[in-house]
C-alpha cells in the first residue's frame, strides 16, 4: 500500500444536492469526463487566480475545528464586458469596415452594444473610446486576441469561449447566459480543475509551485495588459464558490503531478509554451490518479499501459495494448463494487442485517455513508438488507457509468495517450505531442534511451520496450522481438521530432530539444 493519508468525508450538508456519494468518496468531487485538458487547466486557473488575489494561493487548513474537511473557497472572475467584446459581438468587424469615420464607427458600435450586450449591468462600453486611438485599431486588436482563443474550432456557446490565459485579466469562469442572467453550470467546468488545484496544494512541492504560479499570474504580459484595457475598472460583485471534496490529504499521485509541473516551469520556456504541456500533464495525472486509486482499493498492483508506437501493420504490441486498455478500463468499476462490498462487511452493517427488524437501521447506515436511498424513488424494493445492497450496487454502477467511468478514455484521449488511430479499438498509442511533453517533463538535458524508457515505466507505468514489458506481462504474452521493434519505432519517432540522438548501434540519447539549443 502506498503512502496515502485519507480524509474523513465532508459534513452531510456539503453538496447535499448530490443524490449519491460513492464515486466521490473514492476519487473526490469530482472527476468529470466531459472536459478537455485545456478546460480542466482553465478551471484550475480560475481558482488559482482567485486565491492569489486573496493572497491565499495554496494556503489554508485541510480540516476545520470539528475535524471535517475544509472546502477551498474562491471568487472566480466573470469578465462579462470582455467576453461580450470578444465573443458576443459579430458586428464589430462590419462596423470597422463600413464606417471609416472614427466617430461614426464608435457611435454605431456603442449603440449596437447598448442593445445587444448580455449579462452586463448597464451595457456601457464607452470607456473603450478613451483607451484606444481609433476604432479600427480597437477592432484589429480584438481580432488579434480572438486568434488566441482556445479550442476555437469547437462549436460552443459564446459564454463558454475562452481567450488564452495570458495573465490574471484573461481568466474567468464558464457561465451560461440566459434570460435570467449569468449562471454557473457544471458542464464545461465540472470540477476536475478544483481537484487539480487541491492535488497540487496538498503535494509535497506546493511551496515551490506557488512561486512559479504567482509569477505567471503577476506577469505583465502585453496581451494581458491589453485585455485589462478592454475591461472597466469595476467588475461588479463576484460570487463565492467552494471546491469539491478530495478524499486524500496526501497521495503520491499528487506529488508526481507537482513534480512534472515544476519541471515544466523550470525550463523557462518562451511565451506561454509551457501551458499546453501543463494542461496535458494535468489530464494525464488525473487519469493516472483515478486508476491508481482504483487499483489500490481492490488490492491490485499498479496499472501499466502497453503503448503501441503506431506500426503500419497489426502487431502483437497493438493487441496487448488493447487488452491492457480493457483491463485498466475495468479498474474504476471494480473499485465501486469493492466499495459496496466493504460497506456490507462493516460490523455495524453485519449486526443490523442479522437482526430481522434491522432493515431501517441498515437503510440509515447506508444513508449515512452514501447519502442513498433518500426516498422511495431511490429504493422501493423489499425491506431486506441484501436486496438493498444489490440495489445500491446497481445504482452506484449505473451512476458511475454515466461520467466517472469515461474519465480514463476521455482524459487519456485528451492527453494523447488513448486513441483509436488506425484501428477500431481503443488502445494506448501516444501522440507526438504527448511524447514531447513527457520528454520536457522528465529529461532535464539528455538521458540515455534505455533509462528514459525505465523512467516512463517507473513514473507512469508506460511500457514501450522489452525490458519493461517483461516485468508486467506473463511469459506467454511477452514477445521480445515485438517489443524491440516497438521501441525501435519509438526511437525513429523521437528522432524525427528532433529529440533523440543515436551515437552508435549501442547507444542513443533522448534530448530535451529546448535545452539542446540553449547550451
Amino acid at each position, binding site marked *: 500500500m502506498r503512502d496515502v493519508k485519507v480524509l474523513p468525508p465532508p459534513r452531510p450538508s456539503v453538496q447535499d444536492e448530490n443524490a449519491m456519494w460513492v464515486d466521490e468518496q473514492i476519487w473526490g468531487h469530482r472527476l468529470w469526463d466531459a472536459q478537455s485538458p485545456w478546460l480542466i487547466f482553465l478551471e484550475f486557473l480560475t481558482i488559482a487566480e482567485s486565491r492569489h488575489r486573496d493572497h491565499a494561493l495554496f494556503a489554508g487548513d485541510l480540516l476545520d475545528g470539528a475535524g471535517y474537511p475544509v472546502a477551498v473557497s474562491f471568487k472566480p472572475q466573470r469578465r462579462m464586458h470582455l467576453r461580450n467584446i470578444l465573443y458576443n459581438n459579430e458586428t464589430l468587424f462590419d462596423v470597422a469596415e463600413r464606417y471609416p469615420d472614427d466617430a461614426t464607427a464608435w457611435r454605431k458600435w456603442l449603440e449596437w452594444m447598448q442593445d445587444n450586450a448580455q449579462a452586463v449591468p448597464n451595457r456601457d462600453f464607452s470607456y473603450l473610446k478613451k*483607451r*484606444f*486611438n481609433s476604432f479600427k*485599431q480597437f477592432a*484589429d*486588436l480584438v481580432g*488579434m*486576441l480572438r*486568434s*488566441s482563443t482556445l479550442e476555437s474550432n469547437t462549436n460552443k456557446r459564446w459564454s463558454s469561449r475562452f481567450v*488564452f490565459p*495570458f495573465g490574471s485579466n484573461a481568466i474567468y469562469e464558464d457561465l451560461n447566459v440566459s434570460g435570467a442572467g449569468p449562471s454557473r453550470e457544471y458542464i464545461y467546468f465540472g470540477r476536475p480543475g478544483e481537484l487539480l488545484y487541491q492535488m497540487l496544494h496538498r503535494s509535497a512541492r506546493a511551496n515551490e509551485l506557488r512561486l512559479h504560479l504567482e509569477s505567471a499570474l503577476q*506577469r*505583465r*504580459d*502585453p*496581451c494581458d*495588459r*491589453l485585455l485589462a*484595457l478592454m475591461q472597466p475598472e469595476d467588475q461588479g460583485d463576484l460570487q463565492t464558490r467552494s471546491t469539491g471534496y478530495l478524499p486524500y490529504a496526501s497521495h503520491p499521485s499528487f506529488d508526481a503531478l507537482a513534480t512534472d509541473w515544476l519541471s515544466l516551469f523550470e525550463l*523557462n*520556456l*518562451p*511565451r*506561454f*509554451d509551457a*501551458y*499546453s504541456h501543463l494542461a496535458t500533464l494535468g489530464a494525464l495525472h488525473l487519469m493516472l490518479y483515478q486508476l491508481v486509486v482504483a487499483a489500490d482499493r481492490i488490492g491490485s498492483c499498479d496499472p501499466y499501459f502497453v503503448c503501441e508506437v503506431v506500426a503500419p501493420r497489426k502487431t502483437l504490441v497493438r493487441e496487448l495494448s488493447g487488452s491492457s486498455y480493457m483491463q485498466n478500463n475495468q479498474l474504476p468499476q471494480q473499485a465501486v463494487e469493492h466499495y459496496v462490498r466493504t460497506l456490507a462487511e462493516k460490523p455495524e452493517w453485519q449486526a443490523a442485517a442479522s437482526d430481522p427488524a434491522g432493515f431501517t437501521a441498515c437503510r440509515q447506515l447506508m444513508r449515512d455513508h452514501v447519502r442513498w436511498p433518500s426516498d422511495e424513488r431511490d429504493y422501493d424494493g423489499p425491506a431486506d438488507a441484501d436486496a438493498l445492497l444489490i440495489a445500491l450496487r446497481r445504482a452506484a454502477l449505473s451512476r458511475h457509468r454515466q461520467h466517472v467511468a469515461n474519465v480514463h478514455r476521455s482524459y487519456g484521449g485528451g492527453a494523447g495517450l488513448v486513441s483509436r488511430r488506425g484501428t477500431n479499438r481503443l488502445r494506448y498509442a501516444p501522440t507526438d505531442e504527448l511524447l514531447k511533453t513527457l520528454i520536457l517533463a522528465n529529461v532535464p538535458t*539528455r538521458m*540515455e534511451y*534505455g*533509462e528514459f524508457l525505465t523512467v516512463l515505466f517507473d513514473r507512469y507505468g508506460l511500457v514501450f520496450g522489452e525490458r519493461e514489458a517483461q516485468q508486467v506481462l506473463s511469459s506467454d504474452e511477452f514477445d521480445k522481438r515485438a517489443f524491440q521493434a516497438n521501441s525501435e519505432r519509438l526511437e525513429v519517432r523521437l*528522432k*524525427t*521530432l*528532433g529529440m533523440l540522438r543515436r*551515437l*552508435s*548501434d*549501442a*547507444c*542513443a*540519447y533522448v534530448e530535451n*530539444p*529546448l535545452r*539542446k*539549443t*540553449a*547550451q
Partner: protein
Amino acid sequence: MDAGERWIRFLRQYGPLPQNDNMFDEQIRRSASRLGVNPIAFKHPLEDAVLKVFDGSVTPSCLVLTGTAGDGKSHLCSQVWHQLQGDPGRWASNDVYFQLKPTINGRTYTLHVIRDLTGMPDDDDGARYTSKSALLVELSSALFDSASDVLFLIAANDGQLIETWRKLGPVGDAQRARELLEARLMGDEVPGPESRLQFFNLSNVPSARVLELALDALLAHEGWQACISSPHPDGFFGPACPIRKNFELLQTPLVRSRLLDLFRLCDFGELHTPIRRVLMLLANAVLGHPDARERLMLPRDVKEVLAKGTRHQASLYSNLFGANLSATKRESLEIFDYLGRFGIGQETTNRVDNILIFGAEDDNLKHYYEQLIATDPFYGATDRFRSAQRAYVEAPEATTGDRHDFLDMLMEQRRALFFKIPDELAAELKLWSLTVFASAGEYLDDVARPLQAGERVARHLVARLVNGLNRIFTGLLVSTDRELLLATSLSFSGSRVSQLLEDRVAVSARGRPEKVDVVLRKGFPCLEVTLPNGTVRTLKLNLTRYEFLQRVSQGALPGNFSRECYEDILAFKSGLLAAASNQAHTGNTGGADTGGELSFRLLSLDANGNPIDDVVEIADA
C-alpha cells in the same frame, strides 16, 4: 593457388560476408596466416595520441577507448599492451581482464586493463578482483584522486560503457565518473577540476580520413602486383576482367575524390563509418557481383562472368552503393544506408538524361557523350547499352512488362556519371543534382572548405540561410535576408505561422554585438546567432539542414522536405526567443513594455515580400 588468387580470396574476407562480427579481427588474422597474406594495415589516426598516455612524456592517466564496433579499439588496446611490454601470449588468450605493474617516470602503477567491458565476468577465477562492480567503483575513484597509483585502460562500446556505469548506481564516485564519461562522450565541456582521464572516442575520427588511409593501404598492397604480373588465361586480371577494372578505377583521382566528398558530407552529418565498414565497402566495390557466391567474386568466377556477359553487374559504380547485394543485406549495413540517402542513380537532371538517351546522335550533346560515355567501353558505351538505348529511343514503351530495361541501365549510368563528370564540368552539368542534395557541392566548396581554412563564408550564402530561417520563423514568404526576424504567435513560440515580431537581429551591425554568421565549432559548420544582449546560440549546420534552408529560401514549403529539420529549426527559434527575453527580463511579446505605452508589432508583407511591422501603440494609463 597463386599469390594473386590468394590475395583476392583474402580481400574477400573483408567484404559483407555473413560472419559473426565479434570474431572479425580473429577471422582476418587466421585467414591471413592460412593464405600467407599480409593483412591490410595502416597506422590508426589516434595511435600516437593513445601511446603518448603511458610513454612517460606526460603524467600517465586513466585511458578509455570507446567507439562503435570496428573502430579499432582492440587494435589500439593491444598496441598499448605491447608498448608496456605485456606478454603477447597472455594477450592472445581469451582473457578480458589483465593487470600490469608498469613503472613510468620512476613511479610504479597498478594498471587494470579491461579489453571487453561487457565480457568481463562478475567474479574473477584468479581472485584478482572481488567483484566487477567493486572494481569499477574503485577505478571510478581513481579518476578523481591525483595521488592514486591506480590506472586503468578500458576498451568498450560507447553504449556498453555508459550502461555499465549506470548499473553501478550512486556508489562511491561511480555517479561522478559516469557523468564525466557521459560528458566526454557527448563532447560537452567538462567543468570542475581536471580529472585523470584521457578519453578517446574513436567514432570521432572522421570517416573521410579513415577512407583515405584505407584506400592507400588497400591499393598499395603487394597482392595486386602478384595479380598484375600473372593474369590467368581464363580471364582473371586479363584486359576484360572486372576485378582488374574496378581496381584501376579505384586508383583514379576522380573516383577517389568523389568518394571522399560523400564521406566528408557524411562526417558533417555525424554519420560515422568505422574502419571495418570502410574496408567492407572497398572490398565489395572491387569484388561485388550479384551472381557470385555470397555476391562477391573469386578469381575463378571471372570466367563465367565473361562467358555469360554479365560484366556490367560487377561495376564498381554500382557496387559502391551495394547494388550487388540483396535489399535486406544492403539495408542492414549502415554505410549503404548512408550512401543511399544521397539518392545517386535515382536523382537526375533533364540535361544528364538527354546526354545518356540522345547524346550519341544529338549534335549539341555529342561532345559530352563522347567524353563521358563513349570513352568508357567497359561500363559506359557497351554494346548492350547502345542497343538498349536505340530500342528505347524508337519505342519508349517496353515490349514486355511495363518498365523498359533501359531505365535500369540509366540508373547504372547516372551512378557512373557521378564518378566520371570531371570538376571542370561539375558546375555546367550540375553534378550535385545527381544527388538529393543539390547544394552539397556548394556546402563542401563554399562553406566547409573556407571554414576549415580559417576563412569566412561568403555573405550571399549567409544571406540565403537567413532568408530560409526567416521564412520558417515567421511562416510567411518573406524576402528579408539581412536580418533575422524573431517572430512568435500570441501564445506559442513554436507555431507554424507567427505574426508578432519580437525582435530583429541584424546579420551584421557595426558597433553592436548582434550578428548572424556561419562558423566552425568543434570541426562542424554551425550557424551562430549573437543576440543584441550578447547571448550566443548555435545550430549545427549539417548538409540536410543546409539543403533545407536553401530550398526554403528558393521557395519550397518548410513542411515538405524534412520534418526532423523543420522541428529542429523551430526548436532553435524557441531557444533564441527564450534567450532574447530571459536576458531582457521582460518576457513579453511583439513589443516592449515601455513605461505606460503598450505596443504590438504585427508582421505583414508588402507586394515584394518585404516584412512590414505594423506597430500598434496604446497608452496604458
